[in-house]
């Protein structure tokens, strides 16, 4: 009887389907991912059961942190550039093309207009350090730069893209109500009555009702 040779199975296995799947997923994630821009301030929005989604574009964000500071942000660079020029002209501050370019790259900022030029000259790391101490955009009735930014940005968006602006208030959960109410009131003065409070989704309680 001849010796039975054990059948050696090759240790290799066909990985093609797995690789196919891996690349499919890589492609999917690469195309869908959107890198979070480096915000000037980190806020933790409160949760709500509202499942309304914010639109994709034309979003003006007023960020309110827990130190009563207000930050302004807009998602379109040309609108921001136009708003910068308009607000700068109003307060007699002019900006160099480099500064304007830098400004259009910022996701949001909280600097009074007089300090904005020097803020824009700094590099990213220095700005990050500065963001902790900056006073935010002034929003009291004597020196209300916040409202100027909002109005100019809305105007620029309407002129350039012919679209309405979606105003989002992104408040920190621990921010004080007074600051938020004041911001809302200042905007109401300018006939802006529709606000969207950014919240994180929480499950709706199921037992509500009778």
């Amino acid at each position: 009887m001849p010796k039975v040779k054990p059948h050696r199975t090759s240790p290799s296995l066909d990985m093609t389907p797995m690789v196919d799947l891996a690349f499919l997923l890589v492609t999917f994630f690469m195309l869908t991912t959107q890198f979070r821009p480096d915000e000037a301030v980190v806020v933790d929005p409160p949760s709500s059961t509202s499942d309304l989604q914010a639109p994709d574009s034309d979003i003006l964000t007023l960020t309110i942190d827990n130190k009563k500071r207000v930050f302004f942000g807009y998602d379109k660079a040309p609108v921001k550039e136009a708003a910068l020029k308009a607000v700068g002209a109003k307060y007699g501050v002019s900006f160099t093309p480099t500064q304007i370019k830098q400004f259009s790259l910022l996701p949001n900022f909280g600097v009074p207009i007089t300090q904005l030029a020097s803020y824009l000259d700094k590099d990213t790391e220095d700005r990050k350090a500065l963001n902790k101490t900056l006073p935010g955009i002034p929003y009291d009735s004597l020196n209300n730069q916040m409202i100027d930014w909002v109005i100019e940005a809305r105007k620029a968006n309407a002129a350039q893209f012919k679209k309405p602006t979606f105003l989002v208030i992104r408040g920190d959960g621990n921010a004080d109500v007074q600051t938020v109410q004041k911001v809302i009131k200042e905007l109401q003065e300018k006939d802006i009555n529709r606000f969207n409070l950014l919240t994180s989704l929480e499950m709706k309680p199921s037992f509500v009702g009778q």
Partner: protein
Amino acid sequence: MAEIQQKGDSGKGGKKRAKKASTKIDMTPMVDLAFLLLTFFMLTTTFAKPNVMQLTMPVKEKNPNPEEQTKIKASQAVTVILAPDDKVFYYFGLNEPTDPSVPVPEIKVTDFSANGIRKVLLDRKRQQPEPIILIEPYVYDGKEAKYKNMVDMLDEMNITDQKKYALVDISKKDVDLIKKQNLL
């Protein structure tokens, strides 16, 4: 790991045979890279687009005319005061300290839990189908409610399906009433 190339038996038997190159290539580095990228994108991606809660405030009247303003009926009125430290004060009816015919309301204390203000509002709705809810965030003397409380309260309005509610500033008489009842 992946594909071990089978080679080295082409010269067997001395007969020169055309060397057949294997059609398999070593895919390991590529797969490594693919999974590295996959992991990176999976971890960095954020799917959830932020949710928003709509808040529409009334148009500010330039010349408010007190005679045209509608008075809230005492039977409908519910005042909810967002107090500091996540507490909620509420009372039914009106608070008119100057008018002796209006009884002084008693402020009750509750919280944001499911058995707190939500139960109060739902119970009230059964007795009075059309309540008008005034939400007043407490801001006085350095003590104040948090923005989170305001959003929670507006959320309760959606959960309990209230038709009429308004976000207003706290009135002086309500602050006085809270003080008189030693709640803060």
